[in-house]
């Protein structure tokens, strides 16, 4: 039996995939702006888990979009064999735009999935490529929606003689998306850890960059934290009034974990050193690497729960978590929570 394409089912699954792609785009753009903030961009410090949620949604929606995209393509697969291949100029443009949409969509989903596993079977640098192609994917998706909008009103197909009914196909698609999310979301949603057999980082408080890979060896007593003109030893930091805050580490790769951090608020250190508050550059003992320094926006530097943490979950900070002290601020990407801090400097 020759299978026809099924516009009603296609538009239903198209709507679901559109929601998933939209969520990915908005949350991805936020994450991009957070890491490369233009002058007009401001990001709130509350709720403390805001970035944890937006980035968790980004990765989870991306995973769910994989079966949705495949199911969507299955509903329109017969159109691939349409003859003549090109009927007219508008038809050629439409087919061209769909090729761009699919190229960009697969590019985003596949590179995102591989990046979350820190697996790079390509030579380009992932973040700018993933960001640029996202605009192409969503742009061509909007063009596709504009072209196909009238099909939203197509009545449900007559019963097909296939194995799965129309409803069965939709249920299978939703089920596949649910299975995909359950299998991977444990890195973001702690109570799913046990069932997420394909999730990364299943431990309580994971380490992404170990001291060994950052080439930071054991820190001796000569270590000092420089803030403006003041220098603090670790003992002096311990003698200052301590603040404890429950804050998550939330990675761009989607995993996140919350912990109880104890240390000195950054704003107290700036006040002790007598420097005017502002954006703070935070430098690490790391010798190289993209993330050896970060810039803490003024709003976060002012926040009472932005800490230079000395302890985690009641114990001295382990070297892999940034001993002698690390930055931990509410609602920030994990790569900006600089470890092995040696210097705080107000830059503007």
């Amino acid at each position, binding site marked *: 039996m020759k299978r026809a394409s099924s516009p009603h089912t296609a538009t239903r699954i198209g709507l679901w995939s559109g929601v998933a792609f939209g969520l990915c785009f908005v949350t991805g753009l936020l994450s991009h702006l957070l890491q490369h903030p233009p002058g007009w961009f401001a990001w709130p410090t509350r709720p403390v888990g805001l970035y944890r949620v937006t980035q968790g949604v980004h990765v989870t929606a991306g995973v769910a979009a*994989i*079966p949705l995209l*495949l199911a969507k*393509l299955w509903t329109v697969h017969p159109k*691939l064999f349409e003859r003549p291949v090109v009927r007219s100029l508008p038809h050629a443009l439409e087919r061209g735009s769909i090729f*761009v949409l699919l190229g*960009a*969509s*697969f*590019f985003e989903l596949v*590179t995102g*999935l*591989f990046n*979350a*596993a*820190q*697996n790079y079977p*390509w*030579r*380009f*640098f992932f973040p*700018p*490529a993933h960001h*640029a*192609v*996202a*605009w*192409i*994917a*969503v*742009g*061509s998706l*909007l*063009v*596709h*929606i*504009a*072209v196909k909008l009238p099909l939203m009103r197509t009545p449900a197909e007559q*019963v097909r003689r296939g*194995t*799965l009914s*129309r409803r*069965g196909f939709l249920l299978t698609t939703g*089920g*596949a998306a649910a*299975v995909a999310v359950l*299998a*991977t979301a444990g890195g973001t949603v702690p109570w799913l850890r046990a069932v997420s*057999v394909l*999730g*990364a*980082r*299943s*431990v309580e408080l*994971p*380490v*992404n960059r*170990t001291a060994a*890979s950052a080439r930071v060896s054991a820190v001796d007593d000569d270590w000092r934290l420089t803030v403006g003109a003041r220098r603090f030893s670790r003992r002096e930091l311990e003698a200052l009034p301590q603040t404890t805050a429950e804050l998550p580490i939330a990675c761009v790769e989607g995993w996140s974990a919350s912990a109880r951090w104890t240390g000195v608020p950054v704003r107290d250190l700036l006040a002790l050193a007598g420097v005017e508050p502002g954006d703070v550059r935070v430098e690490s003992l790391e010798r190289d690497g993209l993330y050896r320094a970060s810039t803490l926006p003024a709003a976060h530097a002012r926040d009472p729960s932005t800490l230079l943490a000395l302890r985690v979950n009641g114990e001295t900070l382990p070297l*892999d978590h940034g001993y002698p002290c690390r930055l931990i601020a509410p609602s920030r990407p994990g790569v900006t929570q600089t470890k092995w801090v040696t210097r705080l400097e107000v830059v503007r």
Partner: protein
Amino acid sequence: MRWVIGAVGVVMGLWGAVLVLPLVDVDLALWFVAGPVVHDVLLAPLFAGVGLLVARWVPPRWRAAVLVGGTFTGVLVLLAVPLLWRPFAGSRNPGLLDRDYPVGLLVAVGVVWAAVLVTTAVVRERPRADR
């Protein structure tokens, strides 16, 4: 309305092209083209072929279960690829992949098949609600 959506889409796509232009090389171009090509020559024919085999060889009562189980298995296998195929992985990162993924994949696939087969065996044959 449609024209507005389309115009916004064109502008966004062009902005993406501006952003991607300085990054383009053979590698990136291949990755862009690879998705639709691999789907059309590999994934879709595979799924269609499995569908045909199921329709020919599996008793009618079990066909839906086998298709659903096969679909879920396929999705789990695709998600496992970056975890299991790692000649291009970055430097070893013990904090990242901290599970036994081959066993996890087998368990998940086992649970999926057990669930669809048990459901099919338990649910009484009802007249098919096709719409």
